[in-house]
């Protein structure tokens, strides 16, 4: 197996700080009086983006080619779509 490509400390730290900032945004949305489909889709979108960042940068899939590159994206598509459909219909 070929050796995977390293992620720089600077990039890893930036991604980490971005993830923390997005987490605080989600928490603030939860603390607000907002509710309904708009809030749900906003926080779900943020969550899917954060998970994609973890897959791409922390798990190293950005340095991978072929089907493995998209394995996390494909996974996120399934619960993401099903949760969206369920919230749209409720």
């Amino acid at each position, binding site marked *: 197996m070929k050796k995977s*490509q390293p992620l720089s*400390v600077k990039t*890893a730290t930036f991604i980490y700080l971005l993830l923390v900032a997005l*987490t605080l945004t989600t928490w603030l949305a939860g603390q607000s009086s907002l509710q309904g489909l708009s809030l749900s889709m906003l926080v779900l979108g943020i*969550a899917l983006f954060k998970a994609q960042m973890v897959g791409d940068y*922390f798990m190293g899939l950005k340095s991978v080619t072929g089907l493995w590159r998209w394995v996390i994206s494909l996974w996120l598509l399934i*619960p993401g779509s099903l949760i969206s459909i*369920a*919230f749209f219909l409720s």
Partner: protein
Amino acid sequence: MTEESNQLNQYPPGDLAIWVFILAELAVFAIFFASYAFTRMSHVELFNQYQQTLDRDSALINTITLLTSSYFVVRAVQAIRLNHRQQCERWLWAAVLMALLFLFVKGHEYAHHLAAGVSLSTNTFYMFYLSLTYFHFMHVILGMVILIALAIKTRKGDYSDTEHTGIETGASYWHMVDMVWLILFPLVYVMR
């Protein structure tokens, strides 16, 4: 510090077997998430009402704790790739501390629910909340045991810049545990 390269790999980092395991785990969590969302369709009021009884502040702390542990694991992988074994071990132990903090905060939440008489049979929302979070809780314990084993093996000199597949394998599993929580947190604690 290392520079990123444009060279792409055929396989993800770590042992390929862990990725098959990760996909199986993710499939189970996807079923759990979809079941929660579709069951909620017929109990919207109940889910919204009891979601308000959850401690969102603890969930925030736990999300940041898991993200921080994931970052520490990334730093551990970076360190061993440069053959900095001591640094790698320190980052791994730091990640273990974060895992322990997660378990402590979550355990505190469970104790609070238990004291309030909440159980799996209280209502449908709590059934999902307790099942989902406890299933994830068990994964955190397993991931923490893996991180401890990696730290011990690193101290013994089992890993180097040329052989660190074990660390990449454990790191991939730990990131999966983090990633699942990133979906679970908004779904159970925030979306209403």
